[in-house]
């Protein structure tokens, strides 16, 4: 028998995340939109609310809660601010390689600070020559006595300018088939965040470029084995990256539906609320159907992950479906709002802009289909 109900404890997690998002994040949304900058109070609040600690094991100062709890938290935060959920999801993505592949010293050194939110994390894989194709990576490393020297440039890196701990993916300067993953700390000589992007949506989270120029890092910052970095990066992106985007998409989708229902009940046309019109009801029903289906896909994959099963293919399906559905929902929400849907006073304009960023993050929909097709044909 399959049990689709959340536990009492999971319902409390949802309540806690919703209360947090509505009380601490919602008041900062307009500031994020106006300045297109990360708001320090939001990052501080995420740390105080233990949001960075969710999946970090308890022995390293985390809560050890797993991926269903993480998905619940992301969904609730994204319902209020997709930018904040995106920032949080990438903190976890930057932390996951240390949890999975770090040695004891690395875990002891980094995880407690990351769990408290004192240190912020990100992962740097994408480059102008390849993101979804990690083998197109040009950022190189070279062993030099007891250190490595990194050279190259990473782009479209979420949390680029605020992260203290960056998991960097690079190719062996002398062997284009060998990739390794390193932990680079903010302030390291030769490492610098440079250009900051101005995105169409998710304005409150920072995205930018990282440059490594003769950046010397100690050999103990190598994660896992030298030359086995592809598995490290792909494993984190496959489960945690895609899973995080599912949370962002579900939250945005919920927000679109809630805003649409509210507007449709309040907007009077032909002497009655437009929610009484069948054409509007059809749109609301489509949004609800997509949301329910997306939640089932996402939480199934997350619960598989919590059982220790590999879920990257299931997350590819969920990522494809939920991000596409959220983009449809945002468009539909704007349509339901009519002329008001073009006015910045209404949140649906933000939802539409935010939805545009969902697709490419952690792999485009086309890449998800490549992964899913490979799964089907394997």
């Amino acid at each position: 028998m399959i049990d689709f109900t959340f536990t009492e404890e999971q319902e409390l997690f949802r309540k806690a995340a919703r209360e947090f998002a509505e009380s601490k994040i919602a008041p900062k949304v307009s500031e994020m939109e106006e300045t297109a900058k990360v708001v320090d109070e939001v990052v501080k609040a995420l740390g105080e609310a233990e949001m960075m600690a969710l999946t970090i094991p308890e022995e390293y100062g985390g809560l050890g809660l797993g991926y269903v709890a993480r998905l619940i938290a992301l969904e609730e935060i994204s319902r209020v601010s997709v930018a904040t959920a995106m920032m949080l999801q990438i903190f976890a993505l930057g932390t996951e390689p240390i949890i999975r592949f770090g040695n004891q010293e690395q875990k002891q050194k980094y995880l407690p600070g990351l769990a408290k939110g004192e240190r912020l994390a990100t992962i740097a894989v994408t480059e102008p020559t390849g993101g979804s194709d990690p083998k197109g990576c040009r950022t190189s490393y070279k062993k030099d006595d007891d250190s490595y020297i990194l050279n190259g440039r990473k782009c479209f890196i979420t949390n680029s300018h605020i992260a203290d701990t960056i998991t960097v993916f690079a190719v062996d300067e002398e062997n284009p088939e060998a990739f390794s993953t390193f932990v680079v700390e903010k302030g390291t000589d030769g490492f610098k965040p440079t250009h900051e992007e101005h995105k169409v949506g998710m304005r409150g989270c920072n995205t930018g470029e990282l440059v490594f120029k003769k950046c010397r890092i100690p050999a103990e910052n190598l994660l896992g084995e030298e030359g086995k970095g592809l598995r490290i990066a792909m494993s984190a992106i496959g489960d945690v990256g895609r899973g995080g985007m599912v949370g962002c998409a579900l939250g945005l989708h919920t927000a679109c539906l809630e805003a649409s229902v509210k507007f449709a009940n309040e907007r009077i046309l032909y002497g009655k609320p437009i929610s009484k019109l069948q054409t509007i009801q059809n749109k609301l029903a489509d949004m609800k159907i997509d949301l329910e289906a997306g939640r089932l896909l996402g939480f199934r994959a997350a619960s598989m992950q919590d059982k220790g099963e590999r879920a990257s293919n299931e997350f590819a399906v969920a990522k494809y479906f939920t991000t596409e559905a959220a983009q449809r929902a945002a468009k539909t929400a704007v349509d339901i709002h009519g002329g008001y849907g073009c006015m910045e006073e209404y949140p649906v304009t933000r939802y539409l802009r935010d939805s545009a960023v969902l697709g490419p993050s952690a792999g485009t929909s086309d890449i998800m289909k490549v992964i899913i097709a490979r799964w089907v044909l394997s």
Partner: protein
Amino acid sequence: MLKIVVCVKAVPDPKQERKIRINPVTKTLIRGDIPLVLNPLDKNAMEAALQLKEQLDAQIVVLSMGPPSAGNIVKECLALGADQGFLLSDLAFSGADAYATAYTLAKGIEKIGSYHVIFCGMASSDSSTEWVGPEIGAFLKIPIVTRVKEIIETEGEWWKVKASLDNGFRVVQVKIPAVLTVTRELNNPRTLSFSGIIEARKREITHWGINELCVSDDSVGLKGSPTIVSNMASIELKREVEIITGTREEKAEQLIQKLVEAGVI
């Protein structure tokens, strides 16, 4: 050690109040699928207890009467930091008015044993009688201060609190044990934390029914209720648009006149 009892109630989520309907025949509320949540003013009562626990050596006991699903709000209070949780739940308790509810809660408090202060929210968001707190005090024969907006002193047997009046406040010295009903001005309730929820795994909720409380079935629930709600109605909200014409001064004058007539100013 200071022992604090906090009485809490599960109410239909006030954020979904537009979904609540009134049964035209029985005059009872039709809650439908509206989830039960912790009564908003009971959050202030919980917060008052938690703040005292942070300052003093104290133990917090949470007590609620309601259907088994009200266990969720007791669990929520445990996650907020309460030490023990009790749910009084029995079919015989259903249909209780404020009097029978207070009697049942008082019996629960007596069974819990010693206590120094009992906090209640001033009123519940669904029935808003403001009677349950005072009636608990009456059944337990202890002092009661309603509408507490500030706790000034908590040393010794005599506590000093500030209570709201319609047009001001009064400062009251009250000998504990006492019942204090609290307003939202008292504090800003904390939100749930993930680690608090994990911590609450260690604390079980104790369920008591009519047998455990040793009360007769005609003293609780509908049978023990001396009041009944004979009628209930929804307020119908209507919007009207009226265009005021004239010079700027005439329009201002007319607008003020209309706002005065409507009781707005």
